[in-house]
């Protein structure tokens, strides 16, 4: 039997396959299709200090091998999560990670302080890269100093595992990753969505109510793999890779580039059971290649 176990900060994942924030709801939406306890972990949707209605409709448009979205962090706020959602999902035998967003440093800190006591939430993913809200954190994620300010403040009050989700909309993502590592993050996840837009040429109006939105899907995978490779070569904390993973082959590609674990996002929309198929593919791949421990694949690209 192959060993799929990986570690991110202080949390153990039974396998490296997680789901990306904002594509998997609170897990419950997928319970009809898969056994959630088979996942290495799942990241619940972006949570903010207060309730957010999100952006007006329309919020999405299909693009070549991908989609643009502009949801804008719609959620009921951290208290609602703690009181209403958490009790429903806490007994799922998988790592439940909360994605945290804020418009200023104190928001991030306050949300993390509220989440810290939850027994079954042993990691947060700090979103400093949401492209879809004016102060959705992308400002923090595009400069080293901005990223440091958020990470250092959270580190002071949050002792569990902190993953920082990086924006790809930067010149040198490795620099940001190094700053985040130096500020006390336990792991980085990349990439968040790419800032894009599309215009309906018949109406001459943008397809999204916010004009620009976040591009995700298979289309951006080659850029995300490159960034994961650059970051994995720049930092010593574990890297979580995501960006257009559609199948098991893609998951292996990210791990060979240096990812310790991966997140499946947009692919969940096309096949709600894809995560389980990816886990099975990884097992078959390891057997086929005579690999006993998944860790042998991490950063295993050969030159």
């Amino acid at each position, binding site marked *: 039997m192959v060993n799929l176990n990986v570690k991110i900060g202080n949390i153990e994942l039974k396998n490296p396959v997680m789901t990306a924030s904002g*594509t998997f*709801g609170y897990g419950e939406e997928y319970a009809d299709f898969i056994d959630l306890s088979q996942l290495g972990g799942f990241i619940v949707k972006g949570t903010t200090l207060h309730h957010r209605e999100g952006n007006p409709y*329309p*919020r999405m448009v*299909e693009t070549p091998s991908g989609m643009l979205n502009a949801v804008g962090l719609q959620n009921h706020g951290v208290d609602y999560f703690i009181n209403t959602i958490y009790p429903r999902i806490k007994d799922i035998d998988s790592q439940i990670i909360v994605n945290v967003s804020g418009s200023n440093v104190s928001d991030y800190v306050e949300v993390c302080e509220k989440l810290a006591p939850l027994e079954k939430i042993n990691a947060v993913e700090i979103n400093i890269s949401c492209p879809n809200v004016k102060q959705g954190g992308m400002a923090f994620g595009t400069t080293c100093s901005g990223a440091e300010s958020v990470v250092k403040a959270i580190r002071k009050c949050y002792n569990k595992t902190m993953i920082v989700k990086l924006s790809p909309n930067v010149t040198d993502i490795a620099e940001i990753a190094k700053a985040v590592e130096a500020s006390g993050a336990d792991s980085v996840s990349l990439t968040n969505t790419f800032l894009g837009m599309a215009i309906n040429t018949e109406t001459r109006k943008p397809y999204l109510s916010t004009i620009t939105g976040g591009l995700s899907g298979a289309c951006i995978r080659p850029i995300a793999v490159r960034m994961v490779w650059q970051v994995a070569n720049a930092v010593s904390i574990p890297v979580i890779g995501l960006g257009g993973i559609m199948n098991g082959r893609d998951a292996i590609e990210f791990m060979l580039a240096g990812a310790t674990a991966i997140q499946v996002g947009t692919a969940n*929309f096309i096949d709600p059971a894809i995560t389980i198929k990816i886990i099975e593919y990884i097992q078959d791949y390891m057997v086929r290649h005579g690999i006993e421990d998944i860790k042998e694949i991490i950063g295993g690209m050969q030159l």
Partner: protein
Amino acid sequence: MKKYIKDFEIKENISLTAQYSVLKLSPIDGQMPKTLPGQFVQVYVGNSRNTYLRRPISINYIDYDKNELWLLIRDAGEGTNSMIKSPNGSILNLIVPLGNGFSINNGHSLLIGGGVGVAPLLYLGKVLKERGNEVSFLLGARSKCDLLLLDMFSQYGNLFLSTEDGSMGEKGLVTQNSVMQTDFDFIQCCGPKPMMMAVANIAKERNIECEVSLENMMACGIGACLCCVEDTASSGNVCVCKEGPVFNINELKW
């Protein structure tokens, strides 16, 4: 209701017009999921260069004797076009059933449909009729050739027709059809948004219970991506794919 990801075989692809086809599908494993009128499916399109996401299609009809689920497809782009071109015997992967569905009321319902929006009303009319209710259909289209499946509809209720060019039924919009002046207990409506808004206004004036089925653009269809939201009176932005697609007009901010 439990949702399934299921392969269906196209038993029959019936081309109604150049633009419309009915696909009669049977589950490969023989197990037809329980569905409600007004629910929809998400269709995976495997053989199209430029289709990435699934395509939401409302359930047109369920034939439990033949174990068939019908989809009424309008050629509205590369995704639906490749469905229409799928030969008999080919496989379609569906996520089914999705959404809430229409209310099954006791009384006389007027089911108003426009264009491809007539699709879910056939299944709804069948169920209402089976429950012993009186059903009337008011179907509108641009012209005669866009009025679809009339023989099927007539099995389940009285038929009232409107065409913009007057080539069949009364000339004009459905809202101008004389049947709108008659009495009934409920209106249930599916079609282009301007049509549904006009119907909603009449319903409000006449104080008649009215449900409409929305078609907001969506990615997942299962309430995960939060893209297909509609702003509602009591709950703010809700997912059309989950809390809808059917809404009582009092819930909408129209």
